[in-house]
């Protein structure tokens, strides 16, 4: 199905199943521990051995030698594979860091060996017995130092946030110089870790030249393609299966060492091997969100209208890596005739920086939305009113491109109303409750809506059950449920009559889970396949498909009716199709919007920040399932609290690695850090997005939250912190005197 004109009325508009807050259909399995994750597929292949990965103990240099004698002689050891056994493997299309092979070490905890043994304990022990002799070389680990001469670099995260190296509209410098009210400030965001609860894990089994990988991966088709490339085998010989993913957040978008090591280990051992990265390996062996240094300049007239805006970001990465596209939203969020955005990239020898939930916008808005708060303060305007004043309904760089829908102002207005924003004291540091300095902050949320093709296969059986097969993944997002809702709606079935099978590369290739594009595109692909199935059913039963109504498990036209299953016959009826897009994304800017509101208390004595209330009002097209969509947003808001207050991978600038590589020292929010959260979805349906008229929400929920927390802290204390995370040491010496 080609989607190249705005959607008209279609079966999804019935909203009989779609749009309902249905409990997740995979819930009973997840809550009983019977949903199988990658490392748990005891049933998948017999006689599995255990692989344990050894990571490099230096950040940069060469391996001189590896002594594996003791490891090979250790009890239970089946095989030892080292990086010196083979030349550097080819890199997958989406990989920056080398995953295995050769003597060169490019980053700390790069995989350099795998020990395979009968038991986990034996494999772990054997890996520790491998003696490695290194010739270390000095590396570049300090972003601030490297930023000074970092060159311009364009960026695209593979997750949708693209930006040219430098983009200019009008004459920024002249307009900024002439502006009566100006802000010029620099903000920093740290390296962050996805820290999904399930560490990267894979089981590999070879049958002749073919390998099957039971793994944990967000993008099955990318993983299949890149594992084939890395191993130098045809893609047809690779199968990936990932029905349950224990969290991804971008950390499992790409082929990673667990899958490669499992495949190599299984080949060497001559039997299936299972490999999981240890928790301490996750931060340095895999990818992370790169740190940024962002300079923002805003010039406005005394009336509060922005006349000049510039956002320039510098980040670091390994050679051939990409910049964090933190300026992306600034190109689209606010009006202003004179504009400048630029990206600079410093080459560093830290582990690979890559997409983490809302790459670009998440760290970009952490900076931009503090800057907007600062400008509002300079102008003496309410922060909500300042944003409303600078709203735009067209792409500010290309005014001929309207937004398909843009209800940012409504999000902000409704959020302010519901949150009691009018009770906020505009003068900071004035509200005191016992030991607590209390403040409110807000920020705009913005994230683009990406369109990408997605395929599915649907099969009808004689019982009237429809089975959907697509390689789409459910990483906690609710894909199983919204896909079942889509098929049920389109085929006129109750949701109990739909079976959803996901995550297998033998199924048609879907959009996958990334860039908050999963829900809209994968359900649109399922819708396309179901529409094809409806045609086939109508034809089989002798109905004119234009008049046929699909409802309550029946096909009806005029006074004729037939049960759906009747069309299936013995062999069943199968249809496969994909959604693909025309140029609507070029003609219209498609984005999602939010207003984030936060109230914090800051301890007047210790500077400890506690989040007391949170609200998000979102405008993101049709909401396919308000229950799972709300969960996406509260989860993202939680991640935003972590980004604002605690999360930072600490760089050892001498030895070049992330020191706090575990869940005790990389501090993500826990229960005690998160209050009750409110989420409101504006009633929308965007016919320009897809036949589903939906968009994404999973990343929108994070975008802006960090700045809303920062702005609330400023309102509470009068202290402006521009370097995340806002830990108490950054407040302590500037807190107001304690009366």
């Amino acid at each position, binding site marked *: 199905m080609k989607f190249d004109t705005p959607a008209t009325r279609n079966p999804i508009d019935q909203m009989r199943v779609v749009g309902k807050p249905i409990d997740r259909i995979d819930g009973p399995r997840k809550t009983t521990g019977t949903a199988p994750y990658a490392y748990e597929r005891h049933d998948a292949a017999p006689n599995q051995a255990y692989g344990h990965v050894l990571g490099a103990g230096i950040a940069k240099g060469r391996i001189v030698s590896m002594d594996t004698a003791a490891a090979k002689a250790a009890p239970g050891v089946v095989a030892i594979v080292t990086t010196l056994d083979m030349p550097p493997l080819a890199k997958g299309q989406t990989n920056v860091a080398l995953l295995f092979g050769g003597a060169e070490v490019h980053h700390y905890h790069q995989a350099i060996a795998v020990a395979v043994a009968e038991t986990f304990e034996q494999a772990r022990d054997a890996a520790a017995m491998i003696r490695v002799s290194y010739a270390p070389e000095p590396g570049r680990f300090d972003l601030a130092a490297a930023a000074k001469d970092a060159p311009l670099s364009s960026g695209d995260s593979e997750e949708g946030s693209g930006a040219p190296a430098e983009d200019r509209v009008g004459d920024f410098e002249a307009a900024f110089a002439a502006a009566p009210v100006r802000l010029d400030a620099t903000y920093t965001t740290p390296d962050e870790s996805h820290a999904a609860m399930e560490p990267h894990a894979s089981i590999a089994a070879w049958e002749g030249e073919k390998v099957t990988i039971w793994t944990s991966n967000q993008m099955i088709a990318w993983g299949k393609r890149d594992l084939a490339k890395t191993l130098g085998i045809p893609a047809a010989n690779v199968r990936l299966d990932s029905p349950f993913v224990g969290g991804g957040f971008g950390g499992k978008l790409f082929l990673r060492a667990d899958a490669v090591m499992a495949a190599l280990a299984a080949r060497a051992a001559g039997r299936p091997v299972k490999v999981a990265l240890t928790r301490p390996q996750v931060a340095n062996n895999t990818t992370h969100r790169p740190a940024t240094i962002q300079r923002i300049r805003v010039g406005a007239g005394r009336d509060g209208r922005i006349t000049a805006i510039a956002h320039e970001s510098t980040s670091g990465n390994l050679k051939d890596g990409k910049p964090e596209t933190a300026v992306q939203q600034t190109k689209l969020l606010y009006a202003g005739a004179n504009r400048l955005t630029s990206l600079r990239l410093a080459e560093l020898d830290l582990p690979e920086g890559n997409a983490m939930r809302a790459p670009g916008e998440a760290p970009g808005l952490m900076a931009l939305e503090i800057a907007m708060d600062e400008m509002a303060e300079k102008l003496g305007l309410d922060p909500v009113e300042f944003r409303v004043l600078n709203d735009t309904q067209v792409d500010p760089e290309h005014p001929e491109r309207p937004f398909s829908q843009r209800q940012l102002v409504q999000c902000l207005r409704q959020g302010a109303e519901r949150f009691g924003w009018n009770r906020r004291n505009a003068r900071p540091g004035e509200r005191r409750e016992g030991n607590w300095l209390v403040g409110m902050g807000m920020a705009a949320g913005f994230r683009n809506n990406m369109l990408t093709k997605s395929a599915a296969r649907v099969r009808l059986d004689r019982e009237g059950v429809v089975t959907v097969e697509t390689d789409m993944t459910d990483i906690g997002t609710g894909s199983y449920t919204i896909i079942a809702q889509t098929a049920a709606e389109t085929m006129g079935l109750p949701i109990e009559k739909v079976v959803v099978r996901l995550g297998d590369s033998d199924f048609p290739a879907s959009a996958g889970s990334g860039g908050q594009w999963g829900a809209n595109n994968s359900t649109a692909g399922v819708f396309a396949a179901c529409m094809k199935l409806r045609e086939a059913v109508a034809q089989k039963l002798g109905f004119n498909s234009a008049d046929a109504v699909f409802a309550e498990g029946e096909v009806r036209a005029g006074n004729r009716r037939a049960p759906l299953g009747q069309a299936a016959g013995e062999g069943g009826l199968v249809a496969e199709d994909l959604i693909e897009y025309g140029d609507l994304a070029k003609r219209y800017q498609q984005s999602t919007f939010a207003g984030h509101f936060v109230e914090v208390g800051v301890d007047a004595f210790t500077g400890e920040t506690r989040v007391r209330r949170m609200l998000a009002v979102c405008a993101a097209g049709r909401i396919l399932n308000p229950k*799972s969509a709300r969960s996406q947003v509260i989860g993202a808001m939680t991640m935003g609290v972590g980004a604002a207050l605690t999360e930072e991978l600490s760089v050892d600038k001498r030895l070049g690695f992330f020191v706090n590589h575990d869940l005790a020292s990389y501090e993500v929010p826990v229960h005690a850090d998160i209050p009750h959260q409110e989420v409101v979805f504006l009633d929308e349906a965007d016919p320009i997005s897809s036949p589903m008229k939906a968009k994404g929400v999973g990343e929108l929920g994070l975008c802006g939250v960090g700045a809303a927390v920062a702005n609330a802290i400023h309102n509470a204390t009068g202290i402006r912190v521009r370097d995340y995370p806002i830990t108490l040491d950054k407040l302590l010496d500037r807190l107001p005197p304690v009366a």
Partner: protein
Amino acid sequence: MQEGKEFQLSRRGLAIVTAAAAAATGGPPAAQAQTGAAASPPASAPAMEKVSLVVNGQRHALELDARTTLLDTLREHLHLTGSKKGCDHGQCGACTVMVDGRRIYSCLTLAVMHEGDEVTTIEGLGKPGDLHPMQAAFVKHDGYQCGYCTPGQICASVAMLAEIKAGVPSHVSADLTAAPQLTADEIRERMSGNICRCGAYSNIVEAITEVAGRQA
């Protein structure tokens, strides 16, 4: 010099303690342990230990590498994979199970330390089609997303409510001797050993509150 002396002393002290411990537990003799420490150890078969566990009401007689954690025993030997390995360090709570009714991190304890113990895992609470009230409440309130921390959250929730009922105070209890109250703050504090990176906390607290209200 002083430092070296102390070190030697502590090494001798350690040898004495090791010998005593070995004698008490019937482990390898101290002499062998000392030889092992002096040179690079020869490859020797792992120390195997017999242990008997009652898991979800079913007795299992096992012979395990003594290094096997309770978590790996459940996941790798009994194929009860509902208990999850998120960190293997006692930092995330995904491996939470109940041993003799109390919640513990099963990654931080060896199976051989639990001879005869009654272990309840998520599989022992309920099954699809026959959910425990806490499992049903998690589904109703969407108290999970990816599902990986969920079994640990549910086991911790069930045991945590029992702790409140038993009068065990927490860091946020105003009065250590009074019966703890079933407030959101108490639940959040007591559940903070179970990380959910998907951020379902707000919903989890609602699920627990509903079950607690029904029990009270």
